[in-house]
């Protein structure tokens, strides 16, 4: 399964000794047309690179340095950071464990993640006790990776570790929520920055995906038209309007129509955003999972029937594992899309990382730094989403997707 690296000839050697059809870089000067196009595009590329580098070195990056803290956590008080850090430590350890167990990160993934940590350290340096926390996260990730790789030799230890890892992944979000609200916690209006984007996306994914499983099952349930119609109607109506419309509904309509049990109708805007994002994500994810369910050959169900498995047994052991395996790429794409969509929450006055940036470049001191701020925020998003898709590609390769 692991790719064996092909020895690459030098460019000069490839030009001199002809080309292989599969190797496009060897065709740079194949014919006259190739040569002309290569030269023109090389000049264009160099011009673009020079312009970008020029801009980068002349840009005013001071605003990023000054606003590090808001970019990260918004107005979250410094003496309350202990509510956030443990979750990030566990996240680091889990990342190490999971990559050791399932991923076998390649060079590119490792570079991307290292770059991410470099950016993180740039952001966090000089903040209270951050250096220690950062070192701890790195150490935990490394330790997790080493433990997972060592465990590959013994199947029983490996299965124990993978069970613990999965359970911890599932429990991470509830744990963070408890930490964020236990005792004399800062109100959610203090939440902000990339922390809000990550929290909203994580909760929508963790809570929304089980809901999506039920919705997709309901939509493909034979013999229960009432359930099928209800699920289909929910999915199609939610998918019918853009997220912005649903966010406005969460802001302006939800307070009216929620009952007053447990003060639900007075829930603050972060909670309402969470509800909207969970349901929105559930509807889209349900369609993705349904695609996977439909891709399962009928013989699988017949085999399960002949083994005497019941409906839920078949689900747990036969259909859901195969469905999830088949749709993993689209599932990750959906989650990436959701993470990008969390930038829209600013419209209902949640101060996410993009809104922090917008507020920063609208300040008088930082006039004219809009592009710097936007490029920086864009880079953060790109880093997270690109590593997500790199990880998913890695997991796919390890599961042998597309090669059977």
């Amino acid at each position, binding site marked *: 399964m692991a790719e064996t690296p092909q020895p690459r000839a030098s460019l000069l050697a490839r030009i001199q000794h002809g080309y292989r059809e599969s190797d*496009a*870089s060897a*065709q*740079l000067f*194949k014919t006259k047309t*190739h040569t002309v*196009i*290569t030269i023109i*595009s*090389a000049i264009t*590329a160099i011009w673009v690179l020079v312009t970008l580098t020029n801009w980068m070195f002349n840009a005013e990056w001071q605003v990023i340095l000054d606003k590090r803290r808001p970019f990260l956590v918004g107005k979250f008080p410094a003496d309350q950071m202990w509510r956030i850090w443990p979750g990030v430590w566990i996240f680091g350890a889990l990342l190490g464990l999971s990559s050791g167990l399932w991923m076998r990160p390649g060079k590119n993934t490792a570079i991307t993640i290292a770059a991410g940590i470099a950016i993180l350290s740039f952001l966090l340096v000089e903040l209270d006790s951050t250096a220690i926390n950062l070192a701890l996260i790195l150490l935990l990730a490394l330790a997790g990776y080493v433990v997972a790789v060592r465990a590959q030799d013994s199947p029983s230890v490996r299965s124990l570790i993978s069970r613990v890892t999965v359970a911890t992944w599932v429990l991470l979000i509830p744990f963070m929520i408890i930490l964020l609200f236990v005792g004399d916690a800062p109100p959610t209006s203090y939440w902000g920055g990339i922390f809000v984007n990550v929290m909203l996306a994580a909760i929508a994914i963790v809570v929304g995906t089980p809901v999506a499983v039920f919705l997709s099952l309901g939509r493909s349930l034979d*013999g*229960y*038209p*009432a*359930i099928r119609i*209800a699920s289909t109607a929910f999915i199609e*109506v939610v998918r*019918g*309007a*853009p*997220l*912005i*419309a649903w966010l*406005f*509904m969460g802001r*302006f*309509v939800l307070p*009216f*129509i*929620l*009952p007053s049990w447990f003060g639900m109708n007075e829930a603050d805007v972060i909670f309402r955003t969470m509800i909207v994002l969970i349901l929105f994500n559930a509807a889209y994810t349900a369609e993705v999972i349904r695609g996977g369910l439909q891709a399962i050959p009928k013989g699988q169900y017949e085999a399960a029937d002949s083994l005497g498995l019941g409906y839920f047994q078949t689900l747990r052991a036969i259909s859901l594992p195969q469905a999830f395996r088949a749709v993993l790429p689209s599932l990750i794409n959906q989650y*990436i899309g959701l993470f*990008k*969509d969390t*930038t*829209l929450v600013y*419209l209902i006055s949640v101060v996410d990382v*993009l809104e922090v940036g*917008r507020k920063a470049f609208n300040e008088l001191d930082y006039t004219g730094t*809009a*592009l710097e701020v*936007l*490029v920086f*925020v*864009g880079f953060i*998003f*790109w880093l997270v*989403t*690109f590593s997500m*898709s790199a990880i998913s590609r890695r997991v796919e390769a390890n599961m042998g997707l597309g090669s059977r």
Partner: protein
Amino acid sequence: MSNLVSFWYRSFYRRTIIQGAVILLVVLVGLALIEQVSNIENVHSPRFSSSIPFITFDFLDARAGIDLSHGLIFDIDSNDSRMDAILNGAWNTIRLAVVLIVFASLLGLLIGVGRLSDFYLIQKACTIYVEVLRNIPALLQIYIWYTVVWFITPPIAEAAHINISFFGANILTDAVIVSNKGLAIPWFVRESQLGLWFLLGFIALVISLIVRRFLQKRQDELGGNQGTNRYPALIFFGALILAYVGLGAPFTTETSSIVSSGAAGAIKNYGGGMVITGEFLAIVVALGFYTASFISEIVRGSILALPAGQTEAAKALGLSAYQRLTLIILPQALRTMIPPLGNQYINMTKNTSIAVAIGFSDVVFATRTISNNAGHSLEIFTTLLVLYLLMALVISSIMNSLNWYVQRSGI
């Protein structure tokens, strides 16, 4: 006990009980909602609830009191009704969506083919394009383009006038005027008998299509080139020009100019022509680039899904790279492309709602403003939902019939 178990496993009873429970739950939730909503009248601000029921659409007939800019064809002002304002917003959304669909499809096709290109640098450039643009939130890209448009355009007092000249002779003065109020280009002005001209044009179109079918048949029988495209085109455009002259110019064109108003002409704005605002431009460029990155992946996937023998056979026939692409690869790839493309178009239409972030007056902008003025958020939200559902329905039915056509005829 065993009776009970066998009762539960008789599928008829089980289905009835489970579905009955689900229906009951839905009905209860619905009743609770209605109860909740009908109680709102009491807690709602007295300004809105004096003796009118909470759920009503009457308020949509009232004067809107808002001016939607970016108007084209329907230009409403603040005295029109709220419903008109919402429909005008919807029209802006549709206009944006149509322009975006064309732009993003062409760009996506180009990038998708470019990623499979023989030319190494072009291939790499297209890959970088896709990996960068689809991983950055659309809202952020809109901000970036809006900032860029704002930075590079001059204020309207120093607007750049671009003339079209030919060997030193001015053909069209003020062909394009660029400033931070937008891009002004010449546009059509309606004169008398425009409707008749459209009718004649339609008749000419039908006739030329009939002629084309006849010529096609002849060509199938006789072979050779019978001018199946040339003669119908001649008929159609000839008839259009003749009708234009005969009806005495049913429409004319007009270039834009800058009009001053206010004290000492301090307020300048465009007059005449068509104005493409900076917001519109920023959204089209940003969302077009963003969606093109997704469309290019669809294009690439569909081309890669074709058996390699197709390309090899085309090469063996001696077709050039361009001929291979347009005659062999794309027509076949189109079949697998259309369904996901339709999804992408619907997504993009919904994504245009992000345009409110920079103040483009689309349907969300209109509904939100009216909801702020008049309350009734539930009714307005329902209207918005229905409008978006309609748009999605139209797009998917167009794509479905296109799909049907392609599957049937194979182009």
